[in-house]
C-alpha cells in the first residue's frame, strides 16, 4: 500500500505519534500507581515489567531463542504453553492509544478491549504483539470471535470454542480441544509436548499459584497490608512475565507483606471504605477506576475481574496423574470454576461475589462495565438484586478507553465512597473526621 517515499514518511510520522502518545499515557498511569502510598517493597519488578512493555516498548524479558504465544481471556491453560517450551503472554489490552486506532477498524459498539487489540495489531508497532508465534483466542464473546478472524490476517491464530454450559460433555469437548491445542503448539514451537514437559510445566505454574494463594491470603488480612491497585498491578504484570520470574518476584512481596503483618504496619490509619471491584476486565494502563477509588479515599479490597483474582485463583487439581488426567485437570480448571459471563447460567458468579464480600468484609461493590461489553452489562441487574438483599450497595460504572469520562467517574466514585462512609456507625465517622 505504501508506494511513494512521501507515503512512507507520513506513515513514519503517524507511527511516531502513536509511540509518543502510547508511551506517554502508559508512563502517566505507571507514575500514578507509583505515587500511591503504601506500596510494598518488592513491587519494582512488576512496575518494571509494565514499563518495559508499554513505555520502553520492548518484548517480554526472555531469551531470544524462546518463543512467545499470545493468549486472551483466562481459559487458555498456560501449562500447555510452558510444556511446549514457549512463554505465554496475555494480550488483552487496556491501551487508550491503540483503542483510538482500533476505533476505526472495529465497529462502534465493539468493546474497547477488542478495539485496543485490533489497534495494536494494526499498527504493528507493539513488540509484545509482534513477537508472538501464535495467538490463542478463546471465543468468549462476539467481539472476541470477530477479533480472532481479524487477527488471522496478521498472524497464526487458533480459536478455542468455549462451551456455554459446564456439563460433562462440555468438559470432554474442551479436553479434545486441548489435544488439538497441543498439536498446534507443537507445530508453532517445534517442541514436543510430552508427559515430562507437561509435568514440569505444572511445577512451574504451580509454584506461581502457590505464591499467589499466599499473596491473596495476606491481602485479605485486616487491617490492610496492600492496596488493591498495587495488587492489581501485580496481577496485570503476570501477563508479561514468565511464571517462575513472577513467582520469585511475588515471593519477595509476600515476604515484605508478612513482615508488615508481623510488625503491625498497615497502609493507612484511616478507616477506608472497602470496595470490591468487579465486572469487565481492568487491564493496565486502563487502571483509572482503581486509581480513582484509592485516590478518593477508598480501598480496592477485592477484585473479581479476569486480569485479577478470577483468572488465577483456582489451581488445576490433578486427580489422575496420567497425561490425560493432567489435560483434564486443565480443562476442568479452565471451565468449571470460571465465573465468566460467557456462560449461560452464571449463578456461580453471585456466589463468588458473596464469598469475596464476606471474606474481605466488603462495604460496597463497584460494577465496572466497558462500553459495548454486553455480557457483563447483562449480569448487572441480577447482581444488583442479589447484593441488594445483602444490603451491599452496588454502583454501575460505565467507562471507555479514554480519559474524557474521568470526571464523570470521579463524581460517582466520590459519592459512592461518601455513601459508604455515611453508612458506617457514627462513632467511626467522628473518628474519621478527626483525622481530617
Amino acid at each position, binding site marked *: 500500500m505504501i508506494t511513494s517515499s512521501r507515503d512512507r514518511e507520513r506513515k513514519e510520522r503517524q507511527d511516531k505519534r502513536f509511540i509518543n502518545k502510547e508511551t506517554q499515557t502508559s508512563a502517566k498511569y505507571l507514575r500514578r500507581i507509583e505515587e500511591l502510598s503504601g506500596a510494598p517493597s518488592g513491587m519494582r519488578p512488576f512496575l518494571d515489567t509494565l514499563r518495559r512493555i508499554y513505555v520502553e516498548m520492548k518484548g517480554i524479558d526472555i531469551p531470544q531463542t524462546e518463543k512467545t504465544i499470545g493468549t486472551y481471556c483466562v481459559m487458555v491453560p498456560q501449562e500447555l504453553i510452558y510444556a511446549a517450551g514457549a512463554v505465554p503472554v496475555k494480550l488483552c489490552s487496556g491501551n487508550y492509544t491503540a483503542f483510538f486506532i482500533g476505533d476505526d477498524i472495529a465497529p462502534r459498539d465493539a468493546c474497547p478491549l477488542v478495539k485496543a487489540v485490533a489497534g495494536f495489531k494494526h499498527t504493528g508497532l507493539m513488540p509484545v504483539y509482534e513477537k508472538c508465534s501464535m495467538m490463542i483466542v478463546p471465543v468468549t464473546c462476539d467481539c472476541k470471535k470477530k477479533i480472532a478472524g481479524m487477527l488471522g490476517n496478521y498472524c497464526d491464530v487458533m480459536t478455542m470454542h468455549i462451551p456455554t454450559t*459446564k*456439563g*460433562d*460433555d462440555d*468438559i*470432554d469437548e474442551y*479436553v479434545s480441544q486441548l*489435544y488439538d491445542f*497441543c*498439536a498446534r503448539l507443537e507445530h508453532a514451537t517445534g517442541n*514436543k*509436548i*510430552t*508427559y*515430562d*514437559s*507437561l*509435568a*514440569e510445566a*505444572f*511445577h512451574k505454574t*504451580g*509454584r506461581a*499459584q*502457590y505464591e499467589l*494463594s499466599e499473596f491473596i491470603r495476606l491481602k485479605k488480612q485486616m487491617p490492610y497490608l496492600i492496596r488493591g491497585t498495587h495488587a492489581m498491578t501485580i496481577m496485570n504484570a503476570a501477563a508479561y512475565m514468565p511464571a517462575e520470574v513472577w513467582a520469585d518476584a511475588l515471593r519477595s512481596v509476600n515476604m515484605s507483606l508478612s513482615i508488615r503483618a508481623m510488625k503491625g504496619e498497615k497502609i493507612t490509619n484511616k478507616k477506608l471504605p472497602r470496595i470490591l471491584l468487579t465486572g469487565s476486565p481492568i487491564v493496565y494502563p486502563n487502571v483509572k477506576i482503581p486509581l480513582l477509588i484509592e485516590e478518593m479515599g477508598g480501598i480496592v479490597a477485592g477484585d473479581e475481574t479476569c486480569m485479577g483474582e478470577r483468572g488465577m*485463583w*483456582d*489451581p488445576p*487439581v*490433578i*486427580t*489422575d*496423574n*496420567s*497425561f*490425560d*488426567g*493432567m489435560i*483434564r*485437570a486443565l480443562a*476442568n*480448571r479452565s471451565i*468449571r*470454576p470460571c465465573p465468566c459471563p460467557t456462560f449461560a447460567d452464571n*449463578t*456461580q458468579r453471585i*456466589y*463468588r461475589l*458473596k*464469598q469475596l464480600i*464476606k471474606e474481605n468484609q466488603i462495604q460496597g461493590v463497584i460494577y465496572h462495565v466497558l462500553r459495548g461489553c454486553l455480557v457483563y452489562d447483562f449480569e448487572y441487574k441480577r447482581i444488583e438484586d442479589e447484593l441488594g438483599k445483602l444490603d451491599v450497595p452496588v454502583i454501575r460504572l460505565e467507562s471507555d478507553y479514554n480519559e474524557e469520562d474521568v470526571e464523570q467517574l470521579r463524581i460517582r466514585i466520590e459519592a459512592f465512597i461518601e455513601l459508604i462512609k455515611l453508612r458506617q456507625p457514627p462513632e467511626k465517622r467522628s473518628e474519621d473526621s478527626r483525622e481530617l
Partner: protein
Amino acid sequence: MRSRKRIIRTAVICIVFFALSYFALYLPFYKFPPESYGTSLKKIFSVEYIKTLIPLFIITGVSVIGIALVIFIRNKLLNKNGRDISRYSSRGKGKAPRQKPAVFMIVRWVIMVLFSFMMIWGGLLFGLRSTNISLPIFSCPANNVQMTETSCYFLSHPKDLFTELPIKNIIIFFVSTLLFIILLGRVMCGFLCPMGLVQDIMDKIRKKTKTKGITPNEKMYAAFKPIKWFMILLFFGIGFIGGNFCNFCPAITVSPILAGIGVSLYVSGFLMILILIGSFFKRRLFCNICPLGYLVGLFHKISPFRIKKDCTACTECGACYEACPMGIKTIYTEREKADVTEANCIMCGECIKCCPEDNALSLTCAGKKLYTASRKNVMSGYASKKNEVEI
C-alpha cells in the same frame, strides 16, 4: 431414538447377567476337587496352598493380558483419530505434581489392608473368630475361617437364613448387620471392604504406570444405574427362583482362595477378570453396581459419618467431582445445603483430598471433623522447600 437404544442395551446386559447368574453352575471357571474345600494353618504354609491359588493366578494373568489388550486397541483407535499417543507415556522421570499424603489417606489404606488381611487370615493365624456378628461387606463367607461373618450370604439366601440358623443367631445377624449399617454406613465400603481394596489396588497400579484411564461422565453413571438395580434384584431375588448368587458373585474369588479354601469358581471367575480390568481403568467400578453397598446406602441419612460442605468457600471448580469414584455430582453443584452426603458416597475422602478451597469440604463423624480440605495440602506439591521451612 437414543433413549430406545439405551433401553435395549441395558436390557441386553441385564438378560445376559440374569442368564449368567441363573446358569452359573454350568459355566465353571475353575473346579477344585471336592476334598480341597477346607483349610488349616498347616495348609497355607505348604506347597498345596500354591495349588489352591491357581485360579487367582489365572485371573490375574488374564486380567493383565486383558488390560494390555485394551490399551493396545485404544492406542490404535487414538492413532487413527490423529491423536499423538507417544506423549501419554513418561519416558523420563517426569512426575505429575502430587500432594503430600494426608494422614487420613494413610489411615484409610492401613485400615483397609489390615482389615482385609484379618478378614482373610485373621481367623486362621490368630484364632480370632466371632462368627455370629455379620458385617455387610463383600468379604466372602465361603471363607469359613474368616475373622467374622459377613451378611452377604444370608441376605442373598434368605431361605437358608430361616431354615439353617437358630433363632438366636438370626437375631444376632439382623441386629449386627443393622448396627453396622447405621453406625458405619458406607464407611465400610471405603475402609473395610476387601472388594474395594482390590479395586483400589488396581487403580493405584494404573496411577503408578501413568496410564490413561476411562474418564467417567454422567452418561456412564446413568448406564450403571439400571445395572445396579438389576444386581440388587439378582442379589435378593435369585435365591427364590433356584439360583445361587455365590456362583455369580466376583467376591468369592478373593477371600476363600487366599485363605487356602478350594472353592470352585463358576461365572464369578470371569466376572472378576472383567472387574479387575474395569477397575483398572475406572476406579471402584464394582462399587457403582454393588447391591450390598446400595443396601447400606439406603441408611445414609442416619449415619454419623457425613460429608460437609461450606458452600460459601466453594468455587465450583469441580475437582471433587472429577475425583469422585462414584460420580456424585451434587457435591460440586450444591450451593445451599451444608450436608452433601449421598447414598452413593463411600467416604473414601478423595473429594476432600482434591478440594483446593480451605474448609470447603470435610468429612465429619458425629459432628467432629476428621478430614478437612485445605489449599495448603492441595498445593503442597508445588511449594518449594524454602517455603515449607518458613511456614
